[in-house]
């Protein structure tokens, strides 16, 4: 008995020792490859894509991955990258929309010596703790989707976002609702995420300030599918608009169930709803006449936008453009352009060195680039100065810019 036990312990010791050996061995071997990597060919650097892939809002996360990868392909084909002697690769870190896993991913990115920047994350709850990790490693981070104001209020120099914050989009939506649309009584629903709650809060404030009436305010979950009871409640208050702060997955179902339940007024939301999938899930007839605001000018009005749509269709024939694909494309492009600028300053081989990373951060801060979502530049906090908000409406089963 004790002999058998001793053997068991011995085997565990052996396994652990083997692991320790592998670990130290690996550490040593890496350094040799890095040491030999300063050769003549193009320097390969990595962009980290932090997004929920296997758990959480995977549809949006996969969209972010698509957008960023498309940007990398485009950049690698461009003359400027070739001239600088840099090729970009990506590594996707699946944060599962979970803060703990997100910080693990951030640490893994930080431990990658070839990493030049991070395009991510989706959830504010992930972006905020992860941003501190990137800050310590001096890695630039651009979120395409995290709208919680706290993200850029931490005073971290390396943190940027290309999406607009709730306090810009919410009021803009309320202005259009009370102005152009002439809505007077709204029922507000949010999905209990920082994004949805913030948007709904800001919308409600401005709507009241513009003389509108908020008939009710309810919280639902971002994974909820059953809104029947809520619909009955909304119906009883008789609003002329329902505002939903949240993402299309649940938002589409709310819109469908509203119409099924006889609430024949349009639903309105933010960029989280502005997605082809919204119309598919709600059903074109139900979604008809629903509104969504989104940052920047309509894709069709920007030369780059049309190109993006064609390229996207070619690269991903089976996928629709999701809410953050274009932002992710822009975020990744901003990082890569900054890398090229930094390469001009410190040479291509040194962009991943501490001074290279510092140069990337200052280059991002000085960004002045017209992307797919519009003109991108950052203010002192790292928020985008692109505050153009476009109102879209579903007409004939597609999102089109709203014209009065």
């Amino acid at each position, binding site marked *: 008995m004790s002999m058998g036990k001793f053997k068991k312990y011995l085997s565990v*010791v052996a396994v*652990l020792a083997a692991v320790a050996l592998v670990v130290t061995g690996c550490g040593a071997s890496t350094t040799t490859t890095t040491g030999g990597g300063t050769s003549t060919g193009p320097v390969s650097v990595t962009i980290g894509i932090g997004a929920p892939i296997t758990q959480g809002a995977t549809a949006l996360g996969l969209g972010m991955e698509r957008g960023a990868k498309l940007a990398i392909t485009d950049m690698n084909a461009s003359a400027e990258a070739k001239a600088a002697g840099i090729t970009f690769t990506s590594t996707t870190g699946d944060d599962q929309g979970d803060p703990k896993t997100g910080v*693990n991913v951030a640490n893994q990115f930080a431990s990658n010596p*070839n990493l030049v920047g991070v395009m991510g994350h989706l959830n*504010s709850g992930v972006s905020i703790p992860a941003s501190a990790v990137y800050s*310590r490693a001096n890695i630039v981070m651009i979120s395409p989707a995290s709208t919680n104001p*706290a993200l850029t209020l931490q005073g971290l120099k390396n943190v940027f976002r290309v999406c607009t914050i709730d306090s810009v989009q919410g009021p803009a939506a309320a202005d259009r609702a009370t102005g152009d649309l002439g809505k007077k009584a709204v029922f507000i629903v949010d999905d209990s995420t*920082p994004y949805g709650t913030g948007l709904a809060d800001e919308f409600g404030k401005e709507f009241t300030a513009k003389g509108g009436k908020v008939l009710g305010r309810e919280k639902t979950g971002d994974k909820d599918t059953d809104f029947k009871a809520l619909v009955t409640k909304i119906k009883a208050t008789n609003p002329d608009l329902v505002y939903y702060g949240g993402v299309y997955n649940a938002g589409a179902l709310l819109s469908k169930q509203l119409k099924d339940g006889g609430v024949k007024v349009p639903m309105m939301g933010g960029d989280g709803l502005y997605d082809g999938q919204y119309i598919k899930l709600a059903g074109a007839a139900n979604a008809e006449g629903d509104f969504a605001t989104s940052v920047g000018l309509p894709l069709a009005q920007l030369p780059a936008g049309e190109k993006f749509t064609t390229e996207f269709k070619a690269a991903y024939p089976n996928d629709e453009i999701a809410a953050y694909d274009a932002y992710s494309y822009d975020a990744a492009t901003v990082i890569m352009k900054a890398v090229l600028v930094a390469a001009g300053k410190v040479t291509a081989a040194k962009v991943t060195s501490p001074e290279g990373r510092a140069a990337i951060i200052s280059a991002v801060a000085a960004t002045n680039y017209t992307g797919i979502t519009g003109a991108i530049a950052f203010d002192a906090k790292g928020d985008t100065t692109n505050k153009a908000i476009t109102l879209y409406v579903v007409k004939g089963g597609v999102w089109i810019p709203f014209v009065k």
Partner: protein
Amino acid sequence: MAGSKMDIRTNVQSKGWSRGKIAFAIFLGVLVVFAPVLLQGFQTMSFFVRVLGIIGIYVLLALGLNIVVGYAGLLDLGYVAFYAMGAYAAVILGEKFVTAVQMISNVGLRDFLVSSQFIVMLPVAAIIAALTGLALGTPVLRLRGDYLAIVTLGFGEIIRILATNDFLGLTKGAYGMMAPVAQPLGLSQLQLLPVAIPAIGFNFIFSVNLYWYYIVVLLIVLAVFVVRRLDNSRLGRAWVAMREDEVAASSVGVNIMTSKLWAFALGALWGGLAGVVFANAQGFVSPESFTFMESVFIVTMVVLGGMGSIPGVIVGAALIAGIPEMIRGVAQSPLLAGVIDPTLASAISGYRYLVFGLLMVIMMAVRPQGMIPSTRRAQELHPEDEKVLEEEDQSLWDLKHGADRSEHDL
């Protein structure tokens, strides 16, 4: 074997340690203390320190839940509630503490107190979590096994939903809360001692991840010490008696309610401590960290490792919390950049939960009693498992008489 199964006397652990065991303990100690230093030193491996820290938090949680599930035999599916209580207490009260301390005029003392706020919060949060355990336990502990499980599940969800809805304006709802202080006590001093051996690419800086890793390890050592003492205490024996047969235990003078409440409170306490460490190591707390799935994972750690067995629970937690991260880490690590294609690496890390689910099923089929089963538990009679035990005896009988068990199921 059959004889020992019928022996209901608890197995008093022998005090003497064999030489092999001592050697193993020393080796393990050295590994736990120095392996992270080594990992931290090599940039490409440094993120494993963070993974180890997270594993440590789960080990702490699993040790705490083990008191409830393994020792007292109560299934708790809402253990994450105590973890959440600890984390939120650390942030909300930590903030208050820091504000209060700001009034001190002595700069040195003030800075010391500010940076050591989490140390003050550890006992505070532990007490709050334990009291929450008592408050929940008092009305519902009378419930039988699985009824208790669903009530604890409900309680866990209630805590999360209250936090999401900014209950009483305490939690800032979905926005989440930042930890009060970024730089913990002594970290900046420790960071003054970098060690670099450029020849092998070793460049060690005492990272914040390493700091929290050591804090967690200290708490785990404390937990193991306390739990071992508990196991051999009067209370521990009361739990064994209760787990085996509640009625018999109460008839020989074990107060069932008190014993259960102690188990609940003492289990919850470690959840609270883990919450404080999590909140500070993470720097941010929001409701999405405390979902029902977290509770499920902690239960899985305890059962997969071996209920009531301290080494088992530690191994279980390390595997469950570590495997998915390790798969990801190895698949996407730049170490293998030349070996496997990045698309394949992404695919592998995408498949890790599929594999993980499959492994759980296989593990249970191979070792249903857990990886390192508790020797004491294996020798007990379980009131709830009476049927199981009979069947086990029966199968033993079958074995002796060379009969196939399936023939009995006609």
